[in-house]
């Protein structure tokens, strides 16, 4: 039996029209094929275990059968069976470091740096090896939570593809020679005040870096410092400057906001405060459920018999957006518009609120006007308790407009506040880059120092940086990889990972984070601080000395206290770098306002095109990170690639199918990629993601997808108009997981409007049976299983996941991958449905019943595809009490523990996969190959013997990253979520040593001691609760008693320990039946 290629499902637009017209499609669906119930989908579902089928590479002949068997027998003889273990040595410390106890981890506070801004982290270290990143409790930017990028940063540290030595014109060289050469050039330029010296960095918030740069520019006053981040916050900076005349950092307090309107703002993914946004947003989606009658009151205190008691009341979010984002998925109302319409919608909203100068556009459709009016009324009714926020890729006008609306609504000062910018020298970064390119092209650049950036890859195509940079006399690059820019750099110096060096950085709120190293540099290299020090100091100073000197000069608290706390919340001006001055030439610059993107060239019938950072690999900086590559993008579920995302309706009109190769042409430049139809995407527009198509990433990310930078122009803000799309024939295989582990439409996600829920006589029944789910729920006694373990009075582990809070950010998946050393399998294996993630994030669309069309050209069925409701459901192992997997294992490799865990014993498993076949939730994962030995893959492929080369043989560097408390699984072994049994065991042992029998959450204190599963600890919305169900006071027991609680597929009498809390929506009654979710 061969594996059917399920990614090649073909659905013609006609078939889902027919399905929708007859209303026979499922109410909840994951893919268009499921919606249309296409033949391919039926075949996939009915072919019971499609991912389990092994396809032999070659037909097995008698001759090669004998060869294979011969080799197997020979090996069996060599290894001598399993009688003895290999001899091992023990190497103790000669002089043991302080506090290191073998087997016990230590935790160090440090910082994760992204886009120049910091987020506080707490790093777990085993015997000097950092193994896991957690959020830093108490730090405003994280408060103990993480996002997927922070989790994945640990893999970047150990990446064997990192550059490992100083290179000079492609030859190995040394740091000393590099310093001599650079200082030689500087000396010749010194008489001219350093004219011709150019420095390119990312956004700089680090006080120490600012101080060093200030010294460098002090010595060379005519040198120029350029800052450029590919995903720059120019729009944000410029917008606030227009509104207030000063560059400030705007802070949004979603915990205080009753009403939120996002204008293409993906508040959960973009910006340095995204985790804070998720924490705060979810705090207003937190519902403390009480029994009926016990807790009167509720939302706005307006109804008597409320079951849901929430203080403060549920928020309500309106999202206006082009490319579907996480914010839109969570919103109560989502308006899907073409990017070109955004200005009109924002103006309309501002006009309705009463902002001077805003004009309501006349050509909006009736339903858009209704929508805007309702949102405006709602905002006005919640003065001082609302937020209007514009997205980073919207032009400055929209940001200024949003601020004006907030000002007029009295939100400024309560939900919207400002602080001094944490940036050392805020500039318009695109202009800064433009200046650099102009100087390069005018042959004015003698020495170009590129610190940590990759401008040859990640810059607008029209600037043609690759051509310009060749005109510089000397180019030196400090970078973690030999990347696209390294090809043009005379000198390349390996850059240290933040976990290898000292440093400091500021977070969005201005607090200063200290970066402390967790490990000595793996490959040598320099940090930015040391690099600059080599140019300005007589004797190069270490990063430690530089940071400490800066700290000392500020007269701050004890160094030890600062380090252990990890951050200084309210740094004085001296400490934060506020007093650092730069030569006047640096301040003025040539910072003309950039051309507005909204009014860009419109050549009639072309498509709108949105440029966005990729949801997983970002601007390309996580391109070589296998965890990020294999992480299904939250909404599209595509892995290992970017794609040309278009609306299914547009695809139907153009006759395009998923995976069809197309050419996208924008401003005379074109790029070729594969089409993916994304429900919720506006019509006649295209979204492309940056971060892919890199010729010189490491072996993981090289040549995956297409390079969207190659059609991006410097006058395009986040989007442009006049793009064309044409089929060029052929298919490009994408690895999309949206249809994997399908459980079909069986009442899996449940949700109610707040009103329905509060008004219901028996809300628990509402949830149990749901609107469409009339299932039999088995009673306690209806079982063939032994029930004696149920008398257990010790710990009874359980988990609840609150769908009301989950925003689908993927942090749990990556945290689990890091904690439980889950391998990546590569693109081809993902296409076969063999991804190994223990927790998956199912994304459902629903046709709902209140959708309506608002575009005149769209029929009813089409608007379903244009703006479906989105529901996320994280799905770990259910740890069933009556576990179907256990009874079918012929070797007893999966057993039930007293505490209710569904234990997996790897060393017993012989790989029959019966358990997986019998699991109704499809949460078991099988090691089809020795994934842990070839963990990185190459160009998204699992390494096979045919294409193995020396670079694949050194995953040695990845071994220290593995959590020593978890077994490494080999080929032929089944695995699955364990509820992080290693953490449970450690906590249980501690409890028992202290004489306790049961785990009691109230007594366990401190971030490190508290028992949390990895997914729970990472979750930025606190949607996951885990603990002891036998402790009636525990958080998990409370939420398991909630009337919103339900289990999935409970009609099978599996009695799952993982249960869900139904989502409550908070729609505006005025918009009932208008548009959006």
């Amino acid at each position, binding site marked *: 039996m061969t594996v059917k290629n399920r990614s090649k499902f073909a659905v013609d637009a006609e078939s889902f029209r027919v399905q929708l017209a007859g209303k026979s499609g499922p109410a909840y669906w994951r893919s268009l094929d499921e919606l249309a119930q296409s033949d391919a989908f039926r075949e996939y579902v009915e072919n019971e275990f499609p991912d389990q089928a092994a396809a032999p590479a070659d037909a097995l002949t008698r001759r090669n059968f004998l060869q294979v068997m011969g080799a197997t027998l020979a090996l069996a003889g060599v290894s001598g069976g399993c009688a003895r*273990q290999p*001899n*091992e*040595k*023990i*190497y*103790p*410390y*000669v*002089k043991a470091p302080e506090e290191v106890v073998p*087997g016990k981890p230590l935790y160090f506070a440090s910082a994760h740096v992204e886009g120049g801004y910091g987020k506080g982290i707490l790093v777990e270290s085993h015997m000097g090896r950092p193994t896991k990143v957690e959020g830093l409790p108490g730090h405003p930017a994280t408060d103990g939570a993480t996002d997927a990028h922070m989790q994945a940063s640990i893999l970047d540290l150990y990446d064997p593809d990192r550059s490992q030595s100083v290179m000079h014109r492609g030859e190995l060289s040394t740091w000393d020679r590099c310093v001599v050469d650079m200082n030689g050039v500087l000396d010749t330029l010194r008489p001219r005040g350093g004219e011709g010296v150019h420095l390119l960095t990312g956004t700089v918030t680090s006080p120490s870096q600012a101080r060093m740069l200030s010294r460098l520019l002090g010595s060379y006053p005519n040198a120029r410092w350029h800052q450029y981040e590919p995903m720059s916050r120019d729009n944000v900076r410029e917008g606030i400057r227009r509104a207030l005349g000063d560059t400030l950092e705007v802070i949004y307090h979603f915990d205080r906001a009753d009403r939120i309107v996002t204008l293409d703002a993906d508040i959960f993914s973009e910006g340095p405060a995204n985790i804070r946004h998720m924490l705060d947003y979810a705090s207003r989606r937190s519902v403390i459920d009480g029994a009926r009658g016990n807790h009167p009151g509720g939302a706005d205190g307006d109804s008597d018999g409320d079951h849901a008691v929430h203080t403060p009341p549920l928020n309500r979010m309106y999202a206006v957006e082009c490319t579907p984002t996480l914010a839109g998925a969570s919103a109560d109302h989502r308006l899907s518009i073409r990017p070109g319409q955004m200005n009109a919608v924002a103006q309309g909203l501002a006009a309705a609120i009463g902002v001077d100068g805003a004009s309501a556009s006349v050509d909006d459709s009736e339903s858009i006007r209704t929508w805007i009016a309702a949102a405006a009324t709602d905002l006005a009714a919640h003065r001082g308790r609302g937020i209007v926020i514009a997205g980073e890729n919207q032009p400055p006008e929209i940001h200024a407009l949003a601020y004006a609306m907030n000002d007029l609504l009295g939100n400024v000062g309560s939900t919207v506040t400002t602080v001094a910018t944490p940036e050392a020298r805020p500039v318009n970064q695109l202009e800064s880059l433009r200046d650099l390119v102009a100087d390069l092209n005018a042959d004015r650049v003698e020495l170009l120092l590129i610190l940590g950036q990759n401008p040859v890859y990640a810059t607008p195509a029209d600037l043609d940086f690759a051509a310009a940079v060749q005109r510089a006399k000397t180019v030196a690059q400090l970078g973690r990889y030999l990347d696209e820019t390294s090809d043009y750099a005379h000198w390349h110096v390996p850059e240290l990972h933040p976990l290898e060096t000292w440093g400091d950085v500021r977070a969005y709120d201005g607090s200063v984070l200290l970066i402390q190293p967790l490990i000595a540099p793996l490959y040598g290299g320099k940090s930015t601080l040391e690099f600059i020090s080599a140019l300005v100091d007589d004797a190069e100073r270490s990063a430690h000395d530089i940071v400490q000197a800066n700290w000392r000069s500020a007269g701050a608290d004890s160094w030890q206290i600062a380090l252990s706390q990890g951050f200084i919340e309210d740094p004085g001006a001296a400490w934060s770098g506020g007093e650092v001055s730069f030569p006047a030439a640096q301040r003025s610059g040539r910072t003309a306002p950039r051309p507005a993107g909204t009014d860009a060239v419109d050549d009639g019938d072309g498509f709108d095109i949105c440029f966005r950072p990729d949801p997983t690999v970002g601007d390309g900086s996580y391109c070589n990170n296998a965890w990020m590559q294999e992480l299904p993008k939250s909404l599209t579920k595509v892995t290992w690639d970017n794609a040309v995302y278009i609306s299914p309706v547009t695809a139907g009109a153009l006759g395009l199918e998923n995976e069809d190769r197309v050419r996208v042409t924008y401003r005379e430049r074109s790029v070729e990629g594969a089409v993916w139809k994304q429900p919720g995407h506006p019509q006649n527009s295209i979204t492309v993601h940056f971060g892919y198509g890199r010729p010189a990433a490491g072996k993981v990310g090289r040549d995956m997808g297409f390079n969207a930078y190659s059609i991006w122009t410097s006058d395009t803000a986040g989007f442009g108009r006049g793009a064309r799309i044409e089929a060029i024939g052929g298919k490009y295989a994408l690895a999309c997981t949206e249809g994997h582990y399908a459980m079909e439409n069986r009442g899996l996600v449940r949700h109610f409007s707040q009103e329905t829920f509060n008004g219901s006589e028996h809300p628990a029944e509402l949830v149990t049976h749901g609107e469409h789910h009339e299932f039999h729920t088995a009673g306690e006694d209806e079982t063939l299983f032994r029930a004696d373990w149920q008398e*257990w009075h*010790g710990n009874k582990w359980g988990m609840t996941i609150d769908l009301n809070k989950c925003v689908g950010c993927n942090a749990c998946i990556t945290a689990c991958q890091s904690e439980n050393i889950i391998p990546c399998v590569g693109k081809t294996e993902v296409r076969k449905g063999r991804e190994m993630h223990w927790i998956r994030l199912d994304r459902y669309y629903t046709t709902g019943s209140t959708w309506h069309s608002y575009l005149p050209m769209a029929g009813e069925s089409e608007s379903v595809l244009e703006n479906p409701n989105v529901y996320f459901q994280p799905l770990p192992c259910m740890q069933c009490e009556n576990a179907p997997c256990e009874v079918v294992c012929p070797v007893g490799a999966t*057993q039930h*523990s*007293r*505490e209710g*865990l569904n*234990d*997996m*014993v*790897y*060393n017993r498993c012989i790989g029959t996969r019966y358990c997986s076949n019998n699991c109704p939730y499809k949460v078991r994962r099988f090691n089809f190959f020795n994934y842990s030995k070839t963990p990185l893959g190459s160009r998204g492929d699992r390494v096979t013997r045919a294409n193995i080369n020396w670079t694949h043989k050194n995953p040695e560097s990845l071994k220290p990253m593995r959590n020593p*408390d*978890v*077994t*490494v699984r080999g080929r032929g072994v089944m695995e699955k979520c*364990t509820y992080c*049994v*290693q953490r*449970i*065991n450690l906590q249980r*042992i501690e409890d*028992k*040593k202290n*004489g306790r*029998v049961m785990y009691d959450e109230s007594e366990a204190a401190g971030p490190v001691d508290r028992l949390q599963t990895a997914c729970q600890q990472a979750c930025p919305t606190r949607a996951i609760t885990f603990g002891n169900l036998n402790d009636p006071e525990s958080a998990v027991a409370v939420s398991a008693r909630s009337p919103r609680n339900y289990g999935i597929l409970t009609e099978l009498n599996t009695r799952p320990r993982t249960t869900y809390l139904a989502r409550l929506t908070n729609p505006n009654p005025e918009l009932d039946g208008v548009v959006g979710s």
Partner: protein
Amino acid sequence: MFEPLRESWRNGSPLQWNRVYDLPDFAYFNHSIHVNKGIGCSTCHGEIHKMPLTRKAVSLRMSWCVACHKDPAPHLRPLEDVYNMDWKPARNQRELGEQFIEERNIQVAQLINCSICHR
């Protein structure tokens, strides 16, 4: 006899010990909980103070581990005897052991769960 130790201190290179008690990598053993609940050193390591050359005193096979996990009473000592290499079971060891199980909250039924040692 201690020259290798001194040598190690002088030149900073660690001593190389041969591992004698080597559990498979998929089995996890925590010393502290055993010591805290009254399992003495010599129960697993034998009369190590009388071994000129260290050897494995017990098989370390799973059946050996599980025998004690199923019925720890014969091996439980008064806590002050944990480090006593010459400890011998008392005459009324069964009775005493059951008493220790009670006193120390040892949940015997749980001890043979797979995930107690395998994870």
